[in-house]
């Protein structure tokens, strides 16, 4: 008898093999997919964008760590979900927003958007959008102050509003701001994004500029092509539910086309698709796994609902942009959509309705 050592066997239940993809790997890859968008944001808006991304991410990570500390649980910073929230939040804010507001946003995202519900996997809403909605309500002026992209001095100085100390008005540095904007070499800067130009001035922007990001807007929403490429990367790796994105974009396209049919002056579907935060929202926000339904039919309905709501708010609401509220509303009804769209179990006749 050769020596097979006794007592070295692990008893456990099947399956004994595992697929390679894990939650932290998925999260890390989402961060990779966001990197080119951050890079473009820094190129377009300069030091301020860089500082903003760093600030919000630091805020979310620190808050997440402290929350775990206080609740005496092992820290969950390593799963990268807080990093994603931080980056996404920065990408949805105006590039010139005071950094302290960005920091507050990051804290709110984790505390109100995530920890309050029980942490990763339990948040009803997308944490980054919860924070953005909070900031929109708390600081409406700062949240609607836009700067032009590709200003000459963007790498040598921050946008003046960026460095305003906490609790002071964003208007206090109006002179410096005027000086900064003077470098933009744009005649008659109106401080408007393509969507607000559309809404309040009836002016359209060339679709090509929207596509490549040569426009003012939130830090990371401007370059549609990079956002799409990030999405393609995640879908190719099987880490994103493309159906939600497809449904949301298709529904936005169709709804704006219908509005166009009814009213010739309504903006074209192509403009609607590539302007504002729709791309960023549809690719990176609406697809937040935790806050979306899991059922195959549910995700189509969920995406279509958000696309329609976006267009409805943009055209008929008071705000020029509707993506944020559309997604938050979608998040809110997501559990209900899931309950109503339970899959037909093999060998049963009808779609069974969930009890609760």
């Amino acid at each position, binding site marked *: 008898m050769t020596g*097979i050592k006794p007592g070295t066997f692990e008893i*456990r239940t099947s399956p004994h*093999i595992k697929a390679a993809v894990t*939650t932290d790997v998925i999260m890390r890859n989402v961060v990779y997919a966001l990197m080119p968008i951050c890079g473009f944001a820094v190129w377009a808006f300069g030091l301020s964008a860089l500082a903003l991304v760093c600030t919000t991410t630091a805020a979310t990570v620190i808050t997440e760590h402290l929350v775990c500390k206080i609740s005496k649980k092992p820290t969950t910073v390593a799963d990268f979900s807080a990093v994603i929230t931080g980056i996404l939040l920065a990408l949805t804010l105006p590039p010139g927003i005071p950094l302290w507001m960005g920091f507050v946003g990051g804290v709110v995202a984790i505390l109100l958007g995530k920890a309050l519900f029980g942490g990763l996997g*339990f948040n009803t809403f997308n944490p980054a959008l919860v924070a953005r909605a909070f900031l929109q309500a708390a600081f409406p002026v700062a949240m609607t102050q836009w700067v032009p992209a590709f200003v000459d001095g963007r790498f040598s100085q921050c946008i003046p509003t960026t460095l305003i100390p906490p609790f002071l008005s964003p208007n206090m540095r109006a002179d410096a701001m005027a000086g900064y904007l003077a470098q933009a070499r744009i005649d008659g800067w109106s401080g408007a994004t393509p969507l607000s130009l559309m809404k309040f001035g009836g002016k359209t922007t060339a679709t090509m500029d929207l596509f490549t990001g040569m426009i003012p807007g939130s830090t990371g929403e401007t370059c549609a092509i990079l956002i799409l490429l990030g999405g393609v990367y995640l879908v190719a790796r099987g880490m994103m539910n493309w159906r939600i994105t497809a449904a949301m974009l298709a529904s936005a396209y169709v709804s704006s086309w219908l509005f166009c049919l009814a009213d010739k002056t309504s903006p074209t579907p192509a403009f609607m698709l590539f302007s504002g935060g729709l791309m960023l929202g549809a690719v990176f926000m609406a697809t937040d796994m935790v806050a979306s339904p899991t059922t195959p039919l549910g995700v189509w309905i969920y995406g279509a609902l958000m696309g329609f709501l976006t267009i409805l708010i943009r055209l008929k609401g008071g705000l020029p942009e509707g993506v944020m509220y559309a997604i938050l509303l979608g998040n809110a009804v997501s559990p209900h959509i899931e309950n109503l769209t339970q899959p037909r*179990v*093999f*060998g049963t006749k009808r779609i069974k309705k*969930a009890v*609760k």
Partner: protein
Amino acid sequence: MSVLTLLGLDKTFSHGVHPPEYKGLTAHKPVRRMPFASEMLVPLSQHTGAPAKPIVREGQEVVRSEPIAEPGGFVSVPMHAPATGRIARIGLARDVRGGMSPAIFLQLYPGESQEILYGAPVDVDHMSNEEIVKAVQRTGVVGLGGAAFPTHVKLAVPEGKRIDSVIVNGCECEPYLTTDHRLMVEQPEHVYEGIRVVQRAYKAERVVVGIENNKPDAVEAMRRAKPDGEPIEVESIETKYPQGAEKMLIKSLLNREVPSGGLPMDVGASVFNVATLAQIGELLPMQQGLIERVITVTGPAVGNPGNYLVALGTPIRFVLEWCRYRGEDASVVILGGPMMGVAVPSLDIPITKGVTSILVLDKAEVEKRNRKEYPCIRCGSCLDACPMHLNPSRLGQLARKRTFDTMADAFNLMDCFECGCCSYVCPSNIPLVQRFRVAKAIIRERKAAS
């Protein structure tokens, strides 16, 4: 490979997973006989149903293939002596679940020729259904794909039911396993002999052999050996786990869905594993008993992996030593495949009728499964994997809350057949299928208590 295979248009079911196959370790190795161990033990309950009852005494001499235990009821089978020798003891032995259960201990005579002296020819072509059922029971054959359900019970069709299609399961969808593959390549005639018996018993109009398209040589061999003029089709179907599960295979080949809570016979079908049929084809015409089977011994920690013909009752320890097992690397010894197999608590457990393979995983593979568990991020991967179209994500959350009744009533928990696809794909490493096993056991217990 056919055009259909290249285009991905082979017949299949929806959902399921594609784990790495690892079949290259043993797929090309012909079946070899393993020598006899000096001591063997035959558990009295190695099949689904009532345990067999011993008909030998301690100290009695038995001849290879002699019956040593009789069936304990209709849903039960006899046991036959796996070798010539002396009954050393009838008592408790460690079983695969970690408990103790009754078994017959056999001491072999050294130098014995181990010739099979039992058996008499029978005329299969003129047997009635009842006679075939009895004859199959006498062979002691059970489902050799792993389920170990007595085969003759399936052949006894209840009043009012009719089997029009016999499905032959040559999928072998579990990674690593290659026994069915080798059987189809090396002895297709035995499989066809078994098919003849089963077809006769049912008077079935149609026989469909389903083989995954990763075994083109098996498809070829089965097509070549097919008897002329019989209504038998050999289908190459998609390689996907769990293609070999009864309900999935019926869906793939016949496009019929076994109703929830029902049996294959409810849709006029009956499924047999190729190894089961090969044994029936080999044993029944001579009225012999099941005393050996082919197993795959494989895995990264096995020095000499291969397909072996092993006497039932051979201890795992003997098999592993024969295959140059590198004990120091290994942590998990599994009977069956990696998706549904059972990790054994001891190497003194014998090879039984339902054992398809011994798989030894090394540290790297073990650690991969022992990764950290994250909360469910509701990614929906499990919904896309579940072949029964259940909602494992939701079921997992309900299991955490211990709301077992909701799981069964609103989310069809009882339709889960524990294939493990959900646990396999879960990026958060949640032991979903294990939670469902526990939940099902509790629900069954409650039902029995009330």
